[in-house]
């Protein structure tokens, strides 16, 4: 009986962790994800710093792939929040997009979306 309780409790904790992970944005300066789509491997690599945003994707399949950066940025000494969105030129095999900002400006947040064809297969927010 005790063993069943422990099993249930373990399962409960695992589910809570998984669920938390799925709804709370990742608070980190980099992220890596890999999976398969239509039987082919793909991976997504994202990085964030106050003056540099980078998103890269590789896919072994024949479909076009793409990366979108939705980001906020500001100018030092002022409170205006600028929003922007950037998309790469669709490619097969590998696609990447880098945005670098000059001194006096800084990024506050970036949300990366990774697409195979028209489907978003992975997304992550970094700040």
């Amino acid at each position, binding site marked *: 009986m005790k063993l069943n309780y422990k099993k249930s409790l373990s399962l409960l904790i695992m589910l809570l962790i998984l669920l938390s992970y799925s709804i709370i944005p990742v608070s980190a300066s980099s992220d890596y994800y890999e999976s398969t789509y239509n039987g082919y491997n793909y991976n997504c690599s994202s990085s964030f710093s106050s003056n540099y945003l980078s998103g890269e994707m590789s896919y072994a399949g024949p479909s076009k792939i*793409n990366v979108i950066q939705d*980001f906020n940025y500001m100018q030092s000494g002022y*409170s205006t929040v600028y929003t922007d969105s950037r998309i790469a030129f669709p490619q097969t095999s590998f696609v990447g997009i880098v945005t670098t900002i000059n001194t006096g400006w800084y990024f506050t947040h970036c949300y990366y979306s990774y697409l195979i064809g028209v489907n*978003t297969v992975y997304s992550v927010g970094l700040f």
Partner: protein
Amino acid sequence: MIKKISILLIIALIAGCLASCLMLASCNKSSPLESDPSNTKNESSSIGNLNTDSLKPESYYTSSKQGITIGKYLETPYGTYYCSFLGYLYYSEKGNTDYITLCNKPDCTHSSKDCNAYIGTAPIGYYNGKIYYEVWNNINCMDMDGSNHKRIKTLYDGYDNNFGYFHNGYFYYVITKGGCLGAIGNDDNNLYRVKVDDDSKPEIILTNDVILKMSLFTIDEDNIYIIANIPDNSKFVSLYSYSTISKSWSELTDAFGGPSAYYINDDTGYCYINNKGFYEIDIDTKKMKQMKALEFENEGICSALYYLDYIYLIHYTNEPFNFLNQILYIYDWDYNLIDSVEFDKVYGTGGFVGDVDGYIIFTSNFDVKPEYYIDKSEIGTGNLMFHKIED
């Protein structure tokens, strides 16, 4: 008993996970570039109806307004609209009343890009009974009730970014090849504009290298004002003017207030400079004058937002800067302090959203819909407070 509760919790969590998976699967829609938003008519009769009470001149609604954000909040004759940083469009009948997600798609969770209210992160504008919005390099419009999305025109070929906003029936913009203002790689020194409601092509209205170091621009009738960064100086910006009639270009000052701290109207420039105070510049003579000295013990950063009734000075007190602690000071146009109130409800990035009729609108986070308002009739009564916008 504990076992039963545990089992029930597990079932609930599994159901939650499945729902999340389904929700994520529903996120897999086309990118905004390729999207084809549903044109389903919005069935709620109260959304997007013309409100004929106390109408202002059309130019008031079509002109760009000051804010902490750019082109996110619209006051129109049909109600007010807000586009969140997450890209969802909301409607409120009076600005201080409930903000409704502009989507009538059945069972939509309003949490993925296939939601009808999702229009992306670019600015919105009002003109002649339509809401205009920009997606990548395309100008789109919709009816005031959020239905009938249409692509109006493509600004240029390719995948270059741009920065701009809608103003009096035009979209004014600069092309930012590096991805945004201030980005490495920007090399287009033109300011463009395009009419939103016809089939005309974009036109260049100004070419100048100052555009490459621009922080923001303002359109006032036939004049364009550009504020530009001064390297290693976050206290001042340079202010330039350009007349589209006489084609004259002029540097007005190199000691002006930056974005969210300046306003230009009728040959006068107004600005606030951190821990120095309020200033005005005569555009014709280039003479700048301090109108009111102001110094905070904790310098922080300030926004100065100039509206018809009042000037709002928002002091962000945290060092280093963030939006968490902010105090709203309300001045009349003679720079007399009328009232002040603390806004301590921000998490992340939030604060002032806009000014509409008798209300000042705030939100705890720009990712979500506006949540708080100040009733202007309470200004100066000693009872100024933020009210929650109820659902």
